[in-house]
């Protein structure tokens, strides 16, 4: 232990820290030396360091285990709530050229963007990455998924082959991959024609991935399109090579094809500025989008704004989860306290028997217990049948006790009750019965003796049980799923849906992060109000 943690000023005696301090004081009047002649301060510091290292070495296996199996995976999962690499990775050129497009103007982006987008889409479609991107953007704008899928099927059949034909007609050399490789190798051409050179690099990389040789493959249409685009924009190729110079002069007379129309032909939704707004909005590698979504809001070009009323669910679900977890904790305290008291005060043999009854549900499958509650509580179930038989409830007005909040609270209270009883019991066992007797002998009534003497001593047990039950309840998933119906499901059910069904892991991570923060804040509040030292687990 060092200064930071143990408060050494309160410890007197020959601790290493105190010795260091003594050495400091002595140093004022000249260095104090150890037996081997090194300054005492140094030698002590070395001893201390060695001790710390040894301590670290001892806990290292556990530390590494916790890091690898707990901290890193959770951290990674939480990072997904803001990570958004997919747009920038799949459409690198588009993202760049779209960054100066004015989304407010409601105009479609210019031909530069369309050319970049064509090249990006072509590679994405070849690598089968466009559908994944479509799924990602579909979370933000309905319809993008099929837009990308449809376009991906069409993009290598665009009419851009007219550029290919015209370049080759101009000079058959353009058909040879060697021409391109020589032209776009290290040389001035790649500086003058950055787009073409970049596309060529990607094409080479793509061939390496596929295990093909770039010099044996046909040059794809997109290369000619990129070159045409740059030449027609007036790239200065006069001093480079005759072939290029000739092409530069000829492109003015080329027959052209509008990429914008090609895309619109594949799907007219490309003419909807909203699609481009979404691409632009989600270009950055870090996005607040998932968190906004988790808070029932959405990111728009004008900033974050609330979702339409009929799509808001998460705020309500968080509230409901907290409220119901509190209800469950409360009912566990009410039901558990007397049982724990009985357990602690009955003779050993009876207490043991009772203990087995408390633990019995622990040994039964969660699903079985939940399904048992279904049988008990449903409208044609045991309780309703008994009530009808007793004449307390009319046959056509059977109580609804399952598939709602009531059913969830009942079933979860039952399932979580042992977690409340056990810490309470272990605390109550340590309260000597003589205290109650002493209180009574001093004139206290039963109630006063309990409330003023016994209860305060049992609070640590209640605290421990409450924390356990509440934190377990807030993340509960399977019971609400089975008996929750519409009004009894928790936020964790939505998290599970987004993990396993909708595959929107970013949103699930954002919801999970919020849940984690809520729990930490509540824990902090609990510490402030009750004090975490007042918790005893056994």
């Amino acid at each position, binding site marked *: 232990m060092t200064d930071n943690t143990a408060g050494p000023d309160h410890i007197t005696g020959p601790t290493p820290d105190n010795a260091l301090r003594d050495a400091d004081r002595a140093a004022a009047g000249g260095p104090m030396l150890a037996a081997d002649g090194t300054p005492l301060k140094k030698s002590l510091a070395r001893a201390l360091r060695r001790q710390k290292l040894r301590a670290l070495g001892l806990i290292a296996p556990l530390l590494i285990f916790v890091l690898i199996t707990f901290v890193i995976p959770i951290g990674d999962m939480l990072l997904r709530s803001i990570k958004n690499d997919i747009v920038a990775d799949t459409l690198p050129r588009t993202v760049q050229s779209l960054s100066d497009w004015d989304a407010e103007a409601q105009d479609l982006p210019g031909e530069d963007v369309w050319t970049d987008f064509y090249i990006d889409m072509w590679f994405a479609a070849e690598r089968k990455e466009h559908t994944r991107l479509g*799924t990602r953007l579909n979370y933000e704008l*309905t319809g993008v998924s099929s837009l990308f899928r449809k376009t991906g099927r069409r993009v290598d059949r665009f009419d851009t082959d007219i550029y290919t034909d015209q370049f080759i007609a101009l000079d058959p050399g353009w058909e040879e991959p060697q021409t391109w490789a020589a032209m776009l190798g290290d040389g001035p051409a790649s500086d003058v024609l950055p787009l073409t050179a970049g596309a060529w690099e990607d094409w080479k990389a793509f061939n390496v991935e596929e295990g093909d040789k770039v010099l044996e493959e046909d040059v794809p249409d997109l290369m000619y399109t990129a070159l045409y685009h740059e030449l027609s924009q007036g790239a200065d190729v006069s001093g480079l090579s005759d072939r290029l110079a000739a092409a530069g002069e000829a492109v003015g007379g080329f027959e052209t094809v509008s990429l914008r129309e090609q895309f619109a032909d594949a799907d007219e939704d490309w003419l909807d500025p909203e699609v481009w707004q979404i691409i632009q909005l989600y270009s950055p590698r870090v996005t607040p989008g998932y968190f906004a979504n988790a808070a029932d809001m959405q990111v728009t070009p004008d900033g974050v704004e609330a979702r339409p009323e009929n799509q808001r669910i998460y705020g309500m679900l968080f509230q409901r989860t907290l409220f119901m977890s509190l209800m469950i904790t409360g009912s566990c305290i009410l039901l558990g306290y007397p049982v724990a008291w009985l357990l602690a005060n009955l003779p050993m043999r009876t207490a043991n028997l009772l203990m087995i009854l408390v633990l019995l549900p622990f040994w039964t499958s969660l699903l079985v217990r939940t399904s048992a509650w279904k049988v008990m509580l449903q409208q044609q179930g045991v309780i309703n049948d008994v009530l009808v038989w007793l004449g307390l409830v009319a046959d056509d007005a059977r109580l609804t006790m399952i598939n709602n909040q009531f059913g969830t609270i009942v079933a979860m209270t039952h399932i979580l009750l042992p977690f409340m009883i056990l810490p309470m019991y272990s605390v109550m066992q340590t309260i000597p019965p003589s205290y109650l007797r002493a209180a009574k002998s001093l004139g206290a009534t039963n109630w006063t003796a309990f409330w003023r003497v016994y209860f305060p001593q049992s609070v640590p047990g209640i605290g421990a049980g409450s924390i356990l039950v509440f934190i377990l309840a807030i993340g509960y998933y399977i019971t609400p799923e089975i008996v929750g119906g519409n009004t009894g499901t928790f936020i964790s059910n939505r998290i599970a849906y987004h993990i396993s069904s909708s*595959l929107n892991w970013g949103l699930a991570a954002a919801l999970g992060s919020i849940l984690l923060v809520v729990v930490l804040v509540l824990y902090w509040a609990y510490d402030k109000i009750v004090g975490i030292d007042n918790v005893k687990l056994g």
Partner: protein
Amino acid sequence: MKLIKTLMTTTAVTVVAGAVSAQEMADDMTIVSWGGAYQNSQLKAYVEPYQEMNPDVNVVWDESSNEAVAKLRAMNEAGNITWDLVDVVAADAIRLCDEGLAMEYEPDELLAEGDDGTSAEDDFGDLIVSDCFIPQIVYSTTAAYRADLLPDGAEAPDSICAFFDTETYPGKRALERRPINNMEWALLCDGVAKDEIYDVLATEEGQQQALDKLDTIKDETVWWSAAAEPPQLLADGEVVMASSYNGRWFSAIEEQGQDFEMLWDAQVFDLDGWIIPTGLSEERLARVKDFVKFATDTQRLADQAKYISYGPARQSSAPLVGQHAELGIDMAPHMPTDPENAKNTFVYNYEFWADYRDDIDAKFQSWLAQ
């Protein structure tokens, strides 16, 4: 010299042997399926006959089809694919294909041609809804009701709209807790023409119209999330009518002798089939391909219908569908594709739901929670 020669020959032989064994097929195969009666039908119809022919092959089942998409994605990120063949519904196959997690295949290369000589591509026809999806069966989401729980004098329901007619058919109903199918049925019963349903559902107003229609029975509906629930709810008398998969109804009615009646009207056809995960080693891939070719041939698909009432995905299998293996009843009338049952049907609109699923689901869940 001789020694060197011998050494070289042995090395060459070893190298060749190594190369040959790389072409060989793995002996272990992990198949992912749904468990229960369905997995059993696959075991009886495909796996057991295959193992008879290849006694060395060891098959491990994993009942994870429910969460196959999420688990495959996780495996892919971890770089360790432990599954060889995964049984998924078509919508999931499309998503796995979109994510690059399922392998694209050539129907005519991978699959055997039909008994009647039609090419695999023609034999499966439109049912190959994705480049990665190897169709196996056609099933449907359809309804059943308890005749004995209907009020006296009420006619037996013959339309899906009975779900929305709480006056004639009082009592609770059970529907799946998701928008798919329910929204279509709601619009159909709200007077929207069948071929316009998806156009209407693509609009805000249409979605609201469907939710408004569902709102009329919201308090009377038990929403289920596992397909095993509705037969149970119906058997307990908790509800008077319910939706579920037709195979579940068959097993409740014929195998367990429950007194339910089928309501085939507006049943929604869906497909279930295999996908092969991407990233398998050569050996494993070779084994899986061999198995899939066998398991999807005409006879095998027809055999599966002996154990469960799902229609084979091959046209050439249809005439071969015979009797239930244990009950000995004719299976044809229990198939969703039987002409008597298929008078009014929907086909799951994969493209539509791939686009609108997130949007409509948010609205549906928000509506449910209110």
